């Protein structure tokens, strides 16, 4: 099944390059819809196969195990709805004359290259090539964030570049250190960089080198994941980027950076035992949730509000992995999936609000549910999910993580619950101010053509979010079991 994996990764590259030569908007719509369909189809083949046989390899470069397939699931699904949404959103900007057709093409080229970089990073069997792919996603994201070329967008783009370049350089140092330790065992070779080999020889690696490497990798990829205290770029970049890009940054890139940290964590755990990485992740996770909970209250810009909520959710997942244990690890992974769905939904809705109101100030937006039922309603639903209300998946994962924390370190559970309560209240307060009440402002109508795309993206995401919260389909269960085993715990799933 190497074919499906190769196509899954190559499709965005091909689509990205062809976007540059496409002439009309209609042709672009066809191209990107076909691209989205290919992504979904190939992703389902890959996921089904990995669920059955556990690993797909292509040559020596690509290798998809359960964790990679799990990432593919998120990347391809949210990426596909993101493409649909971007067709609507950027198309509307073109219609209104805010964006030139030339830039519209460039946007889709970059957007697809960004997906390509992320999909490659999730599936390469090589720590250094993964670094290169993540660096590639940073570069394309920097251009996408500064895409609108306003003062604020350029400033956000610059801050993103500086911070994430520093981060990614430190991550490379960590990668070099792992290589330094592994080539001592395996000799100078490509194998010394392969995940598969690293898992095999992990117990023989030098523990001090690996500890040092983990610290560098955590700071490095943690910066990209928006983990506090390296989160300062995040709210600005998410706030100023074009909304489809914000959705991808929040829904996908944070998870991808987290994926990189987790891969290294599982190696370091095999070398030095669970007691080293767990507490570090736990402390950073709690710090992220704390900072996010405080800043959620003072936000006046709704896109930044959701950006801070992303910091909170990355923190929650880190707490889960930091606590460890079957429920913690399962909760963390489940949290990543549901957060990707809910956060991209909420950003899709926020982008529609921005198109129809023309600004991002929370106080000036009222009566969304009455004025635009679908957008306002889905924003409210996704916010309920993000705040951790049942029946959504984020509720399940938060309960699981708290339960595990209570069993192992009760104080963590108390602190965690208090922070969650604060974040719950502030987020709901802020969003309900926007969703409820009488509309005060005039609606700027969007074209039907735009609506067709954005509505289908919103509805698809909402459906997936609702489904993932209440069901555990067989293939997902078959992915979760090897994934949790991978972190040294065994989960019984019904």
């Amino acid at each position: 099944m190497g074919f499906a994996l190769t196509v899954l990764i190559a499709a965005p590259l091909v689509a990205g390059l062809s976007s540059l030569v496409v002439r009309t908007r209609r042709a672009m719509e066809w191209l990107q819809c076909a691209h989205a369909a290919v992504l979904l189809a190939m992703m389902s083949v890959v996921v089904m196969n990995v669920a059955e046989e556990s690993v797909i390899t292509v040559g020596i470069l690509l290798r998809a195990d359960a964790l990679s397939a799990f990432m593919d699931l998120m990347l391809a699904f949210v990426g596909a709805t993101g493409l649909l949404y971007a067709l609507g959103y950027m198309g509307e900007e073109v219609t209104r004359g805010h964006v030139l057709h030339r830039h519209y093409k460039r946007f889709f080229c970059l957007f697809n290259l960004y997906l390509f970089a992320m999909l490659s990073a999730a599936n390469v069997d090589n720590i250094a090539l993964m670094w290169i792919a993540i660096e590639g996603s940073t570069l394309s994201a920097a251009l996408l964030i500064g895409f609108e070329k306003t003062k604020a967008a350029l400033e956000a783009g610059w801050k993103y570049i500086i911070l994430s370049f520093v981060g990614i350089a430190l991550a490379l140092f960590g990668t070099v250190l792992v290589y330094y330790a592994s080539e001592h065992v395996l000799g100078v070779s490509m194998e010394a960089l392969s995940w598969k080999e690293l898992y095999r020889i992990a117990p023989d690696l030098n523990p001090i080198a690996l500890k040092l490497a983990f610290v560098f990798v955590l700071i490095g990829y943690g910066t990209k994941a928006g983990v506090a205290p390296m989160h300062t770029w995040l709210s600005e970049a998410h706030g100023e980027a074009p909304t489809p890009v914000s959705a991808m940054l929040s829904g996908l890139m944070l998870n991808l950076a987290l994926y990189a940290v987790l891969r290294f964590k599982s190696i370091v755990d095999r070398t030095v035992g669970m007691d080293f990485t767990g507490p570090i992740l736990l402390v950073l996770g709690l710090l992220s949730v704390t900072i996010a909970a405080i800043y959620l209250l003072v936000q006046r810009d709704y896109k930044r509000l959701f950006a801070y909520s992303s910091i909170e959710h990355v923190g929650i997942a880190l707490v889960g992995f930091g606590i460890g244990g079957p429920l913690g690890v399962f909760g963390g992974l489940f949290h990543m999936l549901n957060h990707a769905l809910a956060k991209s939904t909420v950003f899709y809705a926020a982008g529609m609000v921005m198109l129809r109101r023309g600004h991002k100030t929370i106080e000036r937006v009222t009566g969304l549910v009455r004025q635009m039922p679908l957008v306002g309603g889905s924003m409210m639903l996704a916010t309920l999910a993000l705040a951790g209300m049942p029946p959504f998946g984020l509720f399940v994962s938060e309960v699981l993580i708290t339960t595990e924390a209570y069993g192992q370190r009760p104080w963590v559970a108390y602190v965690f619950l208090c922070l969650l309560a604060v974040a719950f209240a502030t987020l709901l307060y802020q969003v309900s101010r926007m969703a409820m009440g009488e509309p005060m402002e005039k609606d700027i109508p969007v074209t039907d053509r735009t609506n067709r795309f954005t509505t289908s993206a919103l509805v698809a995401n909402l459906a997936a979010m609702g489904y993932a919260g209440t069901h555990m389909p067989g293939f997902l269960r078959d992915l979760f079991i090897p994934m949790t085993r991978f972190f040294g715990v065994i989960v019984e799933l019904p």
Partner: protein
Amino acid sequence: MGVIRPDIASQMVDLCAALLLLTCFAIVAQRRLSACVDLFALQSAFLAVTAALMAFLTGIHHIFIAALLTVIIKVIIIPRILKKVIKRLNVTRELVLNINIPPSLLICGALVILAFYITQPIISLGFLLTKDSLAISLAIVLIGFFTMIARKKAVTQVVGFLVMENGLFLGATAAAYGMPLIVELGVFFDVLVAGLIIGIFTHRLQDTFDSVDTSKLTELKE
């Protein structure tokens, strides 16, 4: 390796690495932007020499390719892009720094000690030839990082980032005898694209803000 005695070879590598570290200090002490860029080019040249020396001494030939790419990308192309940016921006000297030069130099000295202290326990893992290079490369990474914090102008921040990259490359080549070729190619490609993107961004910043003093970037405050 037969031509040169191992202890002399190891000292030659150490000498090159030390020169790299020395240019770091020169960059930190330099206020003139174009001189900073020149010093970065000089540092990259030293890096290329180190890599070529490593390739010669160990007989791992693909490191020669990396050395050549270092010359092309980091000694020629990127300094040229940066010079162009500086010319367009019309700034020659950086008058106000976040941290002044004398304390900066002291802090960098402390960073070097820190780097040696951190890497001490794992140095025994490496090869005899490049015993001290890992510590030096970490020191260069930390100094590059510090330069990004201490300076305000976009160009010097970029130089700081590139210095970090040089340190990383020294770490990979000297401490681990180079990553596999495909990895090195990828890293070079990324550095090149990063240089281009930074060039694009500084142009846009200049057009929009009439300045590349990053302390003027204050639109976005909580």
